[in-house]
């Protein structure tokens, strides 16, 4: 009888330990998947911020600093420039650039959309995994402004998201704050 109890006890303890190991393994795997997804999202954050900086830096080429920005709102920025972003060269016509979050057809959801003359840029015209965008504008002295004619730099508050690897997991989220300067306005004396 004692032997049977001993065997039963060891089987129960062994099963519990095995269960613990399996749970650990699942937890570890989910954590690794989330880490991989987050790593890709962080890479996307850097790409988005670098693209925004590159686009805004070439704003206002050929324009007076006060005439560069057409529309400076919290959720969108519209400006003019002679730089042709589609062909990555100086153009001969005025280009109107807009940066805003836009709804895309299903299943794409929302994306940060950069349009030139209402056509999305070929190179990173849509930047995904972003569901929050807010602009703050600064004048030449670094003071906050809401006047389009005074805007000399813009701070973008970006909120990134990505669906988790497991359907019932928490959504992955991250935030980034980037300041971009309208370099051409400064080159023309701001």
């Amino acid at each position, binding site marked *: 009888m004692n032997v049977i109890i001993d065997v039963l006890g060891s089987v129960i303890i062994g099963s519990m330990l095995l269960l*613990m190991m399996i749970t*650990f393994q699942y937890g570890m795997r989910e954590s690794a998947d989330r*880490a991989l997804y987050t*790593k890709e999202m962080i890479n996307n954050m*850097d790409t988005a911020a670098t693209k925004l900086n590159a686009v805004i830096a070439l704003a206002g080429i050929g324009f007076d600093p006060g005439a560069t920005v057409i529309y400076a709102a919290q959720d969108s920025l519209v400006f003019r420039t002679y730089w042709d972003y589609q062909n990555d060269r100086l153009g001969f016509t005025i280009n109107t650039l807009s940066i805003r979050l836009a709804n895309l057809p299903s299943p794409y959801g929302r994306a940060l959309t950069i349009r030139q003359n209402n056509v999305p840029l070929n190179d990173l015209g849509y930047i995904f995994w972003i569901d929050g965008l807010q602009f703050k504008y600064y004048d030449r002295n670094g003071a906050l402004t809401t006047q389009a004619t005074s805007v000399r730099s813009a701070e973008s508050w970006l909120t990134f998201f990505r669906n988790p690897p497991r359907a019932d997991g928490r959504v992955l989220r991250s935030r980034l704050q*980037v300041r971009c*300067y309208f*370099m051409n306005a400064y080159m023309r004396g701001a």
Partner: protein
Amino acid sequence: MNMMEMVLALFAVVFFSTVAIMYNQAVWDQSEILIHSNKYVQSSHLTHSVLDEIDARLFSKQLAFANIKTQYNTTRSLILTHTGGTYNMQISAVDCDSLGVVLATPVANNIYTLVTVQTNTAGLRQPVVLRRVYTKTHLNL
């Protein structure tokens, strides 16, 4: 339970505790690497924006070339509202040659200045350091 069984049970406890700790450590390491990566991206863009700020102010003649060294040997502490956290920046500006090598002895009318920006914040494993060499041109004050 005899002595042998007790020793075996103790070994089992030690073994499974070690496994559990190793798993936990691995998960924590992953988490720390992600936090570091996130903070690194934010810090590198903040650092970059300081260097861009100097460029912009030089272009617009709001900053004289000679004043880089007086105005950008400083520290800044930024509290980011959107992302959260405090980022501490150490900015230094020194005379250098055209390759960015710091000059041991200052040269009169030197036209190169090396600006180094180092940003640190909680969760960052090592500070982000960016450097840019600024050259005086006829467009600068």
